[in-house]
């Protein structure tokens, strides 16, 4: 089974990041990944990579509730830069607030909305949908 070349995790929770990294290894999810602790860091780095023509991630797993720049703001700013089509964005959150789900649907760059906790099975189906 093919691996995703580069995945990107935007989340401020170190335990969650530890867990998903471990699960990604177990499922041979991707070859490499980028981790950002909030939207601002992710936005700065990703736009720099895109501008320089570097390796762009195929997948962004985006948390919503983060300090400095939250997931919504990241989505607004990032979609403004008209990012390459091959980047797929998944929202990955603990929020089961229907208002959040409704808001997520307004961004057509958001492919799916996944509610934590994430499982091995979740990761495998995400991988299958991309490769």
């Amino acid at each position, binding site marked *: 089974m093919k691996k995703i070349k580069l995945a990107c995790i935007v989340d401020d*929770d170190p*335990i*969650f990041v*530890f*867990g998903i990294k*471990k699960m990604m290894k177990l499922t041979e999810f991707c070859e490499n990944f980028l981790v950002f*602790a*909030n939207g601002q860091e992710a936005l700065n780095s990703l736009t720099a990579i895109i501008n320089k023509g570097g390796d762009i991630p195929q997948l962004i797993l985006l948390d919503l*509730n983060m*300090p*400095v720049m939250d997931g919504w*703001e990241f989505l607004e700013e990032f979609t403004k830069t008209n990012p390459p089509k091959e980047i797929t964005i998944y929202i990955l*959150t*603990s*929020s*089961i*607030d229907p*208002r959040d789900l409704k808001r997520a649907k307004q961004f057509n760059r958001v492919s799916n909305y996944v509610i*934590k*906790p*994430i499982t091995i099975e979740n990761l495998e189906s995400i991988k299958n949908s991309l490769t």
Partner: protein
Amino acid sequence: MKNISSTVQAINVLPGSMAVYDRKLNLLASSKEWQSGVQFELAQVNSSKSDLLDRFDASLKEAFNFDTSYFVEDLPAKKIRYKYKFSKFENEVEPLVLAQRILYTKPEEYRKEELLKQTNNVAFIGFWELNLSTKSIYWSEVTRKIHEIPDDFEVELETGINFYKEGADRELVTQVIDRAIEYGEPWDEDFTLITYSGREIYVNAKCQAEFENGKCVRLLGTFQDITDRVLKNEQLRISEEQFRLAFENTPIAFLIIDIENFKILEVNAAAEQVFGYSRNKFIKKKITDLYEPEEFQKNYLLIKNLLHQNSRKFENEQKFVGKDGNTILAKTFFSLNCDSKGIPKKIIAQIQDITELKKKNDEINRFVEVTTNQNTRLINFAHIVSHNLRSHSSNIGMLIDFLKNEKQEEEREMQFEMLVQASSMLTETITHLNDVVSVDINFQEKEEVNLYKFIENGIRSVRGLMVEVNFQIVNRVAEDFRVYAVPAYMESIILNLITNAIKYRDPKRRSWLQLSAERINGYVIITATDNGLGINLERYGDRIFGLYKTFHQHSDARGLGLYMTKSQIEVMGGAITVQSKVGEGTTFIIKLHEEN
């Protein structure tokens, strides 16, 4: 040819227009003038004049039966009137009638009479005449119409009087007629009349008596139907009575105002109640004296405009000042009162005191606002609780899953360490949530607290930290400045403002926070200004006070402090706002009610 006596023959040579007829209506003799005038005219009679012939014959017959008779003939074209007079006399053999035609009125008199007749027809004034020597009554056409009698109805004194309503009216008319006959007293009275057709109407009759040789010979007068006028007056009286009752008993204050000088002309009881002035005090004032100063200009112009508007009325809300200097909030309706020609004379101001209503309404609105706020907070809170608890619990679940399968000891230790961390974070979150809920649930009473001392205590508790990071706090609040607040909340608010200012100081500058307080319009305004990092309000806006929202990359930022501060202030009925500029600093402004 009959045998006519020489006396009768003599008519032929007498001056004047006369003729003699016998019972069979044969013309026995006539004067020259008759022959050339009446006889000629009667001979000329065509269809339109047949009336004259009929009346002539009728009167002639009448004279044979009743000794005398007459009728008049109007000739409007010539502006003259003829009187045909018939008198019976006894000849040697049979009764005969002498017919005479007399010029009854001169042209100018005729015109006057005609004019009067026309006027009377228009005004619907009738005439009546009681001839005491013949005991006969004459009713003019209008009088007859008022009585609704048929054309062939013969009027006599008795039948005439019987039209007056039995009782007071009939007694009165009898009485005044008797007095007029006896003493010549003229009268002018209103009566209730029952017409021939049985309708009850109101009439006015006037009377003059004519005397000859100390004896009354004739009563004559006018007769007028005044039913409409009486009924209208009665309606007017009823509606005036109704208006007066409404005017006096309504809870709405009525002020009647002179249009020229705005002086108050009349007020009702409600006005005295609403404003506290007695009627006598009111009528020394102008409507404009009753306004709150800031309302004067606006309402003065509105009233002035009334005169130029088509609608001639306006309604709005106005503020007045009562006798005790109290503000009266009122719903008002101003309209113009015009005279019969439509010229505005008075302004009628209806003033409904809604001060209490408004107060209650405001209270309800405030209550709704508080409830809505609380509700919004609770909804947000529920979602945040669920989000935060879920993220910790899912981490714990995930770590336990790892631990179950983990073989490597080193890895196990790390995962266990994380599990401990996640567990303590869950406990911390629950503690936070408990704090948040307690603000909404356990409302505590406000007390009068010394703000200066609370700030000093706050400063004391962070003294170590201040020295460490070289931070300065200036307490500019007056030493005796007191404020109504829940002491525990005030302590927490001040400590939070202080620790926030230290936490988000700009390390490139010598940092400070200044606290001050003042009283403005019934509010206490507490201001906290720092020269810290500042915050981009355009970007974060109202989220700054949101729960678990953090904006700086700060390891100990929990996103709880400002949320708690705002909740505590709102629960005390106050408000908090923020002004900030990135790189310059932040100012928080807290507004609390001065009174408890």
